[in-house]
């Protein structure tokens, strides 16, 4: 009897404790995902009142839309360039820091703080920094009028977005990569120096292979981040403009759903985006993850 009641408490207490979190995840993650899947097979009225099963009609409609392909293409370009820069720049910084500076924990903390600043706030800051009239590039326009006009020129707007994204990604990736470099025993570099390898050679033959797990981690996170969390940046800096030049898929979904009231179309694109992200992460783990298995 007593043991039963004791076990009863043990069995329910943990569940009780995680319940709030589970409800939140259910409510704000799984429910919308399931809803999106459901809607992608129905034609929805924007203000409720009737929905109609249409099979794969939504998908064929989206796939036939040239705007969808343009947004997808932009998303891919953004994903590759922004992720590459957001990993390569911190990598260069981390290698330099590992060589020269012994970063104090305080300095490391200061460097991660920007990660805590939400995308929207970074977006607002960058909207000012890159403002053609009052931002840091404004003088450029005094000398060469019209050279920097993110509000008019799609390429300038795209660059602004990439810079803002890379900027927000640097601190976190820097800390991860630096931690990886610091974990490599110093005697390995000494051994390589005696084996005749110069500094560049040591970077190539030792440091890069030895921080492959960290590089892999940052790359996976960056790829998925660059697809989804860019939304806040677009919404605050460019609003998808000029002329749709910065309308990436996430932003198009939002615009279609909440401005165009095309719930079914937006859900369908959401589903496709989700599948793409999952496949992407899966591929990375399958191809990259397998090659970096070793013991230190």
């Amino acid at each position, binding site marked *: 009897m007593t043991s039963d009641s004791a076990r009863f408490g043990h069995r329910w207490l943990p569940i009780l404790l995680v319940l709030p979190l589970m409800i939140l995840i259910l409510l704000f993650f799984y429910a919308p995902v399931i809803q999106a899947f459901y809607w992608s097979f129905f034609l929805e009225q924007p203000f409720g009142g009737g929905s109609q099963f249409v099979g794969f009609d939504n998908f064929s409609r989206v796939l036939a839309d040239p705007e969808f392909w343009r947004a997808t293409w932009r998303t891919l370009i953004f994903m590759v360039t922004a992720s590459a820069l957001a990993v390569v720049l911190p990598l260069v910084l981390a290698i330099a820091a590992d060589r020269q500076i012994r970063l104090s924990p305080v300095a490391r903390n200061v460097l991660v703080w920007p990660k805590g600043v939400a995308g929207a706030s970074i977006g607002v800051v960058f909207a000012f920094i890159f403002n053609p009239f009052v931002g840091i590039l404004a003088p450029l326009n005094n000398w060469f009028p019209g050279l920097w006009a993110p509000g008019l020129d799609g390429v300038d707007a795209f660059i602004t977005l990439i810079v803002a994204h890379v900027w927000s990604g640097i601190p976190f990736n820097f800390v991860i990569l630096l931690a990886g470099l610091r974990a490599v*025993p110093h*005697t*390995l570099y*000494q*051994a*390589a*120096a*005696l*084996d*005749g*390898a110069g500094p560049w*050679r040591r970077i190539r*033959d*030792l440091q890069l*292979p*030895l921080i*492959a797990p960290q590089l892999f981690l940052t790359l996976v996170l960056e790829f998925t981040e660059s697809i989804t969390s860019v939304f806040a940046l677009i919404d605050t800096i460019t609003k998808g403009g000029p002329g749709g030049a910065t309308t990436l898929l996430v932003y198009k979904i939002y615009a279609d759903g909440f401005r165009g009231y095309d719930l079914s179309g937006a859900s369908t694109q959401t589903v496709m985006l989700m599948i793409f992200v999952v496949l992407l992460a899966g591929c990375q783990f399958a191809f990259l993850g397998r090659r970096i298995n*070793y*013991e*230190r």
Partner: protein
Amino acid sequence: MNAIDPIHAEAQGIRLSGVTKSYDAKAVTIPPMDIEMRAGEFTVILGPSGCGKSTLLQMIAGLERVTGGTISIGGREVQDLEPKERGLAMVFQNYALYPHMTVAQNIGYSLRVAGIQRAERDARVKAVARMLGLADFLHRKPGQLSGGQRQRVAIGRAIIREPGVLLFDEPLSNLDAQLRQDMRLELAELHHRIGATSIFVTHDQVEAMTLADRILILNKGRVEQFDTPKTIYSRPASIFVAKFIGAPPMNILPVSGDGRALRFGNGKVFAASPLKGEFLLGIRPESIVLDRHGPIRAQLRHREDLGSHMILTAAFDLVDLRIALPFGSAEPQQSDLHLHFPRECLHLFDVEGRRIEADFHLEYAN
């Protein structure tokens, strides 16, 4: 085994002149040091932790800059050269193998960096691996090897370039006792076959005594003695050396002389001698003889049987004397010990701990 060994080095002598090292302005780690190692010689650097053994080795290797002085290898000044330009190789305590490379890649890395063709590289890696008994492990990663095998890979990586100078920083200290002993013998044999000038850092006096042509004993960065193992054992230059070499360490007894006799602290006359002043008398535990007619009396306090020999601890004149008896010798039956200190086994030091070399004319009374 091949008639001709695949690896043979052109040994080079090393000379340090006035070499000093300070890591920061306040403390001097190594005060000016002048030493010379002959080509092909096996030198063991021995000293307590923190005395600067690794620092010395790293300065020779070029991994640490010298604060002052010159280092020459094979007659060439090298203190401003990069490690790779000095023509030496090093084996590290924690092996420092490249964890992402196979055994073959680890051993052959220096050849790859030097741009040597794959075919030649493979042939030389194979030859070295065969020499070290690693031929079956060439495709493994270091993580899949035992400690002894890893150490062999580290040695292989060092010798493949046939360096004129080989440096070892406590290469055996991560191995268990049995393996240590085996590797010690292997290293001694390897040294004979390769012939490189070798410098070997250790805290283990057995390694030092068995491997070294000469032992360099360091104390707080200073050279206490640099001599053959035999001389270091039989004529230690200081009490520091005397207590560092030998286990259990040499017994040290304060004595004072009035020009006619040397007396122990308790006033008992030890021997007739013309010496005047305070001195320290040293005798090794294994030199003390149990003798029914011995003039020195001590109280037995403790005995430890180590199988091969027995160690007695006896109280004498406020200090504990340690006496080592070889296996099979007669054990004392009562706690009153009569001891004899053979004259030729005595060492005399001044109060600073320096050896007094002059003949000190001891005359036992009898």
